[in-house]
């Protein structure tokens, strides 16, 4: 039976159902329902919720728990996510699986509490130092938040990589009907690498440095190979009204929802438009987009930012068609009618990308 649940709470519940028994976090609007839910529920399932002294400490508590081989999660919002970037880089290098939720709000600076998608660069390009990527999942409904959260722990364990669930403040705060169907997970290897106490086996070190540049390069090459593997296997997207589309929007999260309504309006006017919605922001679903390149006469990125994902879109489109953009910032969201207007001005008027 469906429950009416807030996105943040749905993520927390899904994590518990996925076997996560450790949550370390620091409260920040608009993600606070995640730690609140965990604080309430972890006790009942024999897990641990711990309020860290900062997001910096929280991400390293995650590092510690992940390093001993347990499923662990933290949740935060943009300024807190910024504070965690060093930790993300360390988590990647030490190959510690974990799940991080970023409920994006306004920036830069302290910004505002309203919804944005302006952490896209930080999420997908590696906000910390070094060559690394997290797997970044971008649900666009509360149900998808549940489904992807459950899967995120498997992805993290499978690749020994950090996984980020990226939503905007609206999705975090929104209530929608949601179900928790049984989840059939992946077959996973035992975590024989974990530093969990060397009982009956040689000792393990979980570390993130190398002493020589030669080793540094070979480690980076190995990580690069792992990232190529993830890029090959994990690209995901959902299409809406794309079969006969002449033009296509690209949008994720709440802006994808708004865009769907804009598409309904345009379709009623007889304009054939569709939506290509990345579900993985990293790896960016290039393969799915590439398959539509010959069909689509013009693309348009709709974002709650000044235009960040559009850079990845342009790399794939590579000049083959114009690429337009419409975005709102600082916590504002476009109305579907605004998207319609911007589309007509930029793409039906013939703007070049």
């Amino acid at each position, binding site marked *: 039976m469906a429950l009416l649940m807030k996105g943040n709470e749905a993520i927390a519940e899904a994590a518990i159902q996925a076997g996560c028994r450790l949550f370390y976090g620091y409260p920040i609007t608009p993600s606070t329902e995640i730690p609140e839910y965990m604080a309430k529920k972890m006790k009942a399932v024999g897990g641990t919720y711990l309020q860290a002294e900062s997001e910096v400490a929280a991400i390293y508590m995650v590092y510690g728990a992940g390093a001993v081989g347990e499923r662990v999660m933290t949740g935060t919002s943009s300024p807190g996510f910024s504070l965690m970037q060093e930790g993300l880089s360390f988590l990647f290098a030490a190959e510690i699986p974990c799940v991080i939720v970023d409920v994006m709000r306004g920036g830069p600076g302290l910004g505002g*509490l309203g919804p944005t998608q302006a952490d896209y660069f930080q999420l997908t390009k590696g906000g910390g130092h070094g060559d690394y990527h997290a797997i970044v999942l971008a649900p666009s409904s509360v149900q998808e938040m549940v489904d992807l959260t459950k899967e995120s722990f498997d992805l993290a364990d499978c690749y020994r990589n950090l996984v980020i669930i990226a939503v905007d403040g609206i999705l975090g*705060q929104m*209530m*929608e009907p949601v179900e928790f169907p049984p989840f059939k997970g992946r077959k996973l290897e035992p975590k024989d690498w974990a530093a969990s106490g060397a009982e009956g086996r040689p000792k393990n070190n979980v570390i993130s440095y190398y002493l020589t540049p030669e080793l540094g390069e070979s480690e980076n090459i190995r990580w690069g190979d792992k990232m190529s593997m993830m890029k090959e296997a994990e690209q995901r997207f959902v299409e809406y009204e794309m079969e006969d589309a002449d033009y296509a929007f690209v949008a994720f999260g709440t802006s994808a*929802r708004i865009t769907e*309504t804009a598409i309904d309006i345009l379709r009623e006017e007889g304009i054939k438009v569709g939506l290509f919605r990345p579900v993985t922001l990293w790896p960016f679903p290039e393969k799915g987009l590439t398959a539509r390149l010959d069909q689509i006469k013009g693309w348009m990125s709709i974002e709650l930012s000044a235009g960040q994902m559009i850079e990845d879109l342009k790399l794939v489109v590579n000049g083959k068609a114009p690429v337009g953009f419409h975005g709102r910032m600082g916590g504002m*969201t476009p*109305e579907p009618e605004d998207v319609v207007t911007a589309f007509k001005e930029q793409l039906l008027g013939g703007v070049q990308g």
Partner: protein
Amino acid sequence: MSTARTITKYKFAGFGGQGVLFIGKVLAQAGMLAKQQVTWIPAYGPEMRGGTANCSVIISSKKIGSPTVGKPNVAIVMNEASYLKFIDTVVPGGTLYVNSSLIPELPGRVDIRIVRVPVNEIAHEMGDEKVANIVMLGVMQAMIPAVPDDILEKVLLQLAGKKPALAEQNMRALKAGKEYAMNL
């Protein structure tokens, strides 16, 4: 309910403590039980304390695209600040329910229906001014039912949890609102 595609967008606004988020939740929950698609979004953050609190609800017979409500079909405003903030956003042909206990006669619009109800007084006469929000929900339900009556009542009872006195008070408030609307 009609079998054609129907989508209704609601905005509930007032100041903190007037229970506007709660009646939004009641409606969303009832919509879900009535096998409709629903979304509920609060305006969150410091705005919730002090100024206006509001939430957006959509009830639709089909999958909901945009969950934001910039232009509601129906709005309930419980205080003056909310009236001023939202009167111009209601779509032409829509309905604005106004808490006339707290909102004076202000410049209105001719292209929407404005329903003024002294919900605080009605609730006060019932002995509990806190249920003014439910009174307004009753008015709205009587004028244009959003969901079947029995489902709405069931949800109200459910949300009262283990507090029978509260449940009873809520039911009386809903009824009072409906009766007021009959005489409009």
